[in-house]
């Protein structure tokens, strides 16, 4: 069986591309780093891939709002190609800045016509960029293929604009795959919810379950020694984030 191919999209200011590629490779996929200018000049190459990832970073400096400039570029120049990619069963993962980009393109949540985006990600309630580890609960009802079989996760976040804000009528329609919790798994406020996200939303997926985005960084916890307390706690060889990648690769193998 040929290996699953993953496209890791780079843009000016992307900075988590290398470790994200490493995570997919550890999970058994082939990962290629592709610059946005390269993809725009040859969008057909998308069909060679089963998974597309928009990794973390500060694309275009996050000027005008996190992910905004890249989101516009993707929407205007690659919108149809990405639609075709997902219609053909492709998976899309957005991490941190990738979440912001997917929301601001309208690709997520994908439940309404894109003319009026129903939700956005905005400045943390603390007003600060913060890097900290968070506990996450996984919604078992979610259609998300990336989080299948996972109950809880412990992952780092590092962002200044991770607060999900949504119109009230949109909230019940969202497929919330991941939410922030305290150490016991209950919903809790800051600092457990690091940004003030509505309903503790940490990650969402579309109706197909194949487009998924989250603020925490699974690629930063793929082996046990990345855990902040691996010296004192029994940590496994693989980190919590790793299963997101193996899930994606396993699903894509079936394509």
């Amino acid at each position, binding site marked *: 069986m040929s290996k699953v191919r993953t496209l890791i999209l*780079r843009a*000016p*200011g*992307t*900075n*988590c591309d*290398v*470790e994200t590629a*490493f995570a997919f490779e550890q999970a058994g996929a082939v990962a290629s780093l592709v*610059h946005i*200018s*390269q993809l725009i000049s040859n969008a057909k190459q998308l069909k060679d891939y089963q998974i597309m990832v928009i990794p*973390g*970073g*500060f694309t*275009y*400096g*996050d*000027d*005008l*709002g996190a992910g*905004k*400039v890249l989101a*516009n*570029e993707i929407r*205007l*120049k690659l919108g149809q190609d990405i639609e075709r990619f997902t219609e053909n069963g492709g998976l899309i993962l957005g991490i941190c800045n990738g979440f912001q980009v997917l929301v*601001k393109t309208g690709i997520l949540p994908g439940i309404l016509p894109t003319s*009026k*985006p*129903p*939700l*956005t990600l*905005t*400045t*943390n*309630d*603390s*007003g*600060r*960029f*913060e*890097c*900290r*580890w968070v506990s996450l609960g996984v919604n078992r009802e979610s259609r998300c293929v990336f989080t299948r079989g996972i109950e809880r996760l412990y992952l*780092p976040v*590092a962002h200044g604009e991770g607060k999900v*804000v*949504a*119109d009230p009528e949109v909230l019940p329609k969202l497929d919330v795959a991941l939410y922030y919790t305290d150490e016991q798994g209950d919903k809790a406020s800051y600092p457990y919810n690091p940004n003030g996200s509505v309903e503790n939303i940490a990650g969402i997926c579309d109706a197909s379950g194949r487009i998924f985005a989250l603020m925490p*960084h699974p*690629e*930063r916890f*793929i082996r046990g*020694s*990345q855990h*902040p*307390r691996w*010296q*004192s706690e029994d940590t496994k060889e693989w980190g919590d984030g790793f299963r997101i990648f193996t899930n994606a690769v396993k699903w894509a193998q079936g394509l």
Partner: protein
Amino acid sequence: MHRVEVYLKSHLPDARGQGLVRDINDLGITTVSDVRVLDIYWLDAALRPDELDMLCQQLLADPVTQEYHCDTEFKSQDKTDPGLYSVEVAYNAGVTDPVEDSITKAVLDLGIKDVRAVKTAKRYLIRGELSKNELEVISSSLLVNPIIQHVVEHEVVAFPESPRYHFKLREIDLLGAEGAKLSEIAHQFSFTKDELEAIAAYFKKQERNPTDAELETLAQTWSEHCVHKTFRAKIHSGDTVIDNLLKNTVMRATEELNKPWCLSVFEDNAGVIDFDGRWALCFKVETHNHPSAVEPYGGAATGIGGVVRDIMGTGLSAKPILATDVFCLGPPDLPYDRLPPGVLHPRRIFKGVRAGVADYGNRLGIPTLNGAILFDERYTANPLVYCGSVGLIPKSLSRMGQQKPGDLVVLVGGRTGRDGIHGVTFASEQLTQESTAVSYTSVQIGNPIVEKRLIDALLKARDRRLFTRITDCGGGGLSSAVGEMAAETGVRVYLDRVPLKYAGLSYTEIWLSESQERMVLAVPAECSEELLALFASEGSEATVIGEFTDKRRLKLFYQENLAADLSMEFLHRGRPQLELKATWQKPQHAEPDSAQPPDLAEALLKILGSWNVCSKEWVIRQYDHEVQGSSVLKPLVGRDNDGPGDAAILRPILDSKMGIIVSNGINPKYGDIDPYWMAASAIDEALRQIIAVGGNLKRVALLDNFSWGNTNRPHNLGALVRAAQACHDMAIVYETPFISGKDSLNNEFEFEGKTISIPHTLLISAISVMEDTSRAVSMDLKQAGDLIYIVGTTQNELGGSEYFRNLGFVGSRVPKVKPHQAKKLMDRLSLATEQGLVRACHDLSEGGIGVAIAEMAFAGRLGAAVSLKDVPLGEPIDRDDLVLFSESNSRFLVEVAPDDKAEFERILAKTSFACIGRATSSGILEIYGTREKKVASISVAKLKEAWQRPIRW
């Protein structure tokens, strides 16, 4: 012209504004209830209403959270509302708006082609009862920095046409100058008398006057910042003469040690050591003090940007994998009436430099894993901002490249503007009250995304071997970068080919500009096409601006006109050596006269809550320390991820177990007593941290960074000599060579006829290779019932200690280092760690045993009971407070499981150590004195609260 104003929907909280409310409260103004921050965009364009609406809806405003106004009368509301004040702040002309590039790009993506230029501004709507004076204080203390910004009074931002520049050669009449005129030239270019005489003699031989570009080139190349002329001076110290302090101390140690793993020392932009035989590590720390004093955010941001370019400019370009930063600042609670005129308040400098480092470092995707923050009132006018970076490079590319005549000079990265002109001479001068008013051209904001594009493109170009040499454009701009690169060959540069941010720059301005995010490559002609195409594909600019020759001359052209023609020999070897005098006398400081307090809990709480010791979590969390996925030991450790880690460990190669340890040592308060022992202590501290986290001394390299007052004063220079000698002496015994360094002199401030000098400050940064990162140890107590050992000897050494400082004394018994003993002890402790016998380890520094045990306990969410009775003493000490808070060097607290007791003690045998207590589950820290009387009993939660409270902003 269009003006667009974007604001948050009124029902949403404004996080930026709430931060400002807190800052306003800190100013002592408590009547402000709310601040809203509005983004203003000025567009130089004539758009149709539908185009403008589309632009706002799809780009400038977020449809879920924001609303906007275009070109309408929108200020009516605040004019009629007496409790609402509006302050609009825009960038000064000539300051590059960091957001402009992104907006221009995004506007084009939307298919709107006729926007000629964009500027941004901010409008603050402040609600509360304020006097005119209070509003002015808020505005000048928090909202506007006149160096880069101004308050918009008349609601129109102009887009002036830049005037075109017409070439006109400027010559300086040096040969005809005498007396006062000569002094004026010397002053203008910051030359010493000897230097100007040498230059005059050179041009006399040439039978012509110098051009301005020639004198500027000499001024930059011969500046303290570029050539370290104090460290290379002939120093008369008593009866001895030191011909080149650097070569005789710091560099001599490296030569004597002659370690085969030192790959490139004191020659390139960073020092380089072998990592694993295949990869090498580069390490460099720089200061960016003067720019940070006048514009903290921009100064610190360009500091991190600059040191990262040093890493990219080492060998044939390394990948930056870690950032470290150390700040020395005035106390955040300094009363405003003690603030010298023209100086920013320490709290504002603190917040500004923190934000600058975070915004720039985070955007580059480089984890900031290590650092330190120190406070002393003498840093108020001269804050120190050290920025450092580690790079990873294939060992085969780790030596400085060498171009061939005929190779092209290629300028890559950002465009050139008037930014930072004369930054180097500014950096080497003393600050005055007026500095903040006149130094505006020396400061800029920096654009991290331009630098990130540059990193991405460069590493690809390196791997395709498209260039033969690289250096960064730092201080002195092209004049230093190209002048240095071409020293052994020669070069012709066509200045009119340099891409500019705006028209109107003269050839000299282009040559001297310190615009950020630029580097210079030597590119073989046959590679240039591929290189230019590669940079274009990464969205990074690359331009051929000249070629290297074999003529050993520096020739500058503007269009067809020759603007400079200097011999490389004279430029690089023609500088007369400085002669300086050094003296040093041990200062006298009184010992405290108070008796030991019966209960030491209060003293411990006070030290934990002091600015120097207290938690810096507020800062650390705002740095991304997880990016690149490499961190093994994080800056915040322990049960709640908030204890103070001793050193950072990372695994730079994701599938290798080998790691890097980075640490730092800095103790300026010891320098008030004796700079020799200050330097020795700083080295010991940096090494202790490496040992504490599980490293060893087998492969440790050091960097020195001296920040000093004016070294033309013999006693300051004498102090520098002593510190440098300690660097040599300690490095030899510890076998830890120096691989690079930097100095920043003249950190003084003059006002009202007084001169305030910073304390002598030496930052030692250490990098170490760790064979197996699974041996890493964190400092938090792990298990109740475990034994707590002290390793090392305690002396009556509280001179310069936090304990004495809290009592209002300096003292005279400065902590010394016995390096032979210390090395033996560290080697044994490393062995114990390697064998897995150490569960937790914390090095003892400020606050001694007291602070260390408290930190270990609260980080582990455990209690501890320790007794001072068995602490090994090097001399009789009859007071518990002195034992508890002594800051003697080369000491550690170690947690050992009871089962490992015998083996641990066997390995440590013949060193100085003792078991002094146990970890407990009580949640209480109990300390017993030398007479077995309880001298402190205090809940760990209370200790932690005291430690966390000061900087919980």
